[in-house]
């Protein structure tokens, strides 16, 4: 095999497998439809009620949550790297820390919701909070599914003599998607006005 062929194969590598990309690309399109109804339907983002409601959101908490997810993504990426180096003990630790960040995200999100609900702000308060609760809710659901993936990765690393790199990539791919979808939700709901 020549070097040219080798790099050719290298550049054609699908992270994980094709099936997970069907899943992830579909999820991305499905999420776009939530963004669409938020930003484009009725051109409602420019309405005064949106601007007024946005003031009730806790931007600092959301910022901290963004940084937590970012870090968790880094840890999972590092864990894939460690698996490639057959450094399984470290890879396991990275997965655990990454999942820990995910759990922390959920706790902070739960606190944020709790604060809203105790102020009497619910799903039905107004159009903005409808989008707020649905979008963050769908995202939380994805974080939960992502945590299931991470649990499977941990199981793979701990029980197999030769953990499969492709499986690690599958889980990591999904987790990174959960991460970058949050960037857009963060920008749309909390920052853009």
């Amino acid at each position, binding site marked *: 095999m020549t070097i040219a062929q080798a790099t050719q194969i290298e550049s054609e590598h699908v992270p994980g497998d094709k099936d997970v990309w069907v*899943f992830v690309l*579909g999820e991305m399109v499905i999420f776009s439809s939530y963004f669409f109804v938020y930003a484009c339907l009725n051109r409602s983002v420019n309405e005064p009620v949106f601007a007024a409601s946005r003031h009730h959101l806790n931007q600092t908490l959301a910022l901290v949550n963004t940084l937590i997810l970012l870090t968790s993504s880094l840890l999972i990426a590092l864990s894939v790297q460690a698996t490639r180096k057959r450094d399984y003990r470290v890879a396991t630790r990275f997965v655990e820390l990454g999942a820990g960040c995910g759990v922390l995200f959920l706790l902070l999100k739960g606190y944020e919701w709790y604060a809203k609900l105790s102020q009497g702000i619910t799903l039905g308060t107004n159009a903005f909070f409808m989008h707020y609760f649905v979008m963050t*809710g769908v995202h939380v659901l994805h974080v939960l599914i992502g945590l299931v993936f991470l649990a499977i990765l941990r199981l793979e690393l701990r029980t197999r003599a030769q953990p499969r790199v492709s499986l690690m990539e599958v889980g990591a791919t999904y987790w990174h998607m959960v991460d970058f979808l949050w960037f857009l939700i963060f920008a749309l709901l909390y920052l853009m006005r």
Partner: protein
Amino acid sequence: MSTLVSDVTAAPVEAVRNPKLDQWICWWSIPIFYNLFGLIFVYLGKLMPPPKPGLSQAEIIEFITSNKDSMQTAWVMLALTLGTASLSSGLIIEQMKRMKGVSHAFAYTYLTVLAVAALPGCLFCGIMFALAAFRPERDAELIVLLYDMGLLSFVGSLGCFVTQYMVFAFAIFLDQRRLFPRWLAYMSIWGLVTEFIAATIWTFRSGPYAWDGLISFYLGTVIFVLWEICLVVCLYKLIKHQPVEELHPAYGGAR
């Protein structure tokens, strides 16, 4: 048991022309059922796409009375043909039982959950609208109640489908024979998520998250139809490539 098996093997194997006939009948019931379903709910019943939840009393009564005849035809047809749905579950369960490395717990769950879903998720709706169309001159409040009960049970029976998608995805992932492709399991997770999101229909009477909304109805329906088509194609391939040895001895199998 062994005497029974040998008795049946005595039947001439040559006589069997299509050993998978039962499964093909079940398979064909799926396109037949969904065509009937379209005819009943879209064309005759006028429930897909659904009428608005925010209609006034007068508008709801107008909706029932003006569609009385076609609706009644629809519910008669539903009562007659809903049983077709059971045939498709039978096939899926038979194929799920071929999986290796999983016990029958998933297949039994699928069976049970679909038995549950046929009632609150489908027939109940037909009965409620049949009740409304039966005597549209009823008190207006009662017609609104029947309208709500019909549409909300139809669009809002979520738990059965949550469980169905969940166990189906798990079964595909754990199956060591890899009978179904993995992407079908991932698609089931899309379906699972849409069922969770559809829970918003209990709060909103207009907008994208109401029962006729862009997300909770249209997105959910698109994903469901896509999933169903993929499932049907996968089932076709599964039946076609199923080794005859797995069938009953009387049909050329070595079971």
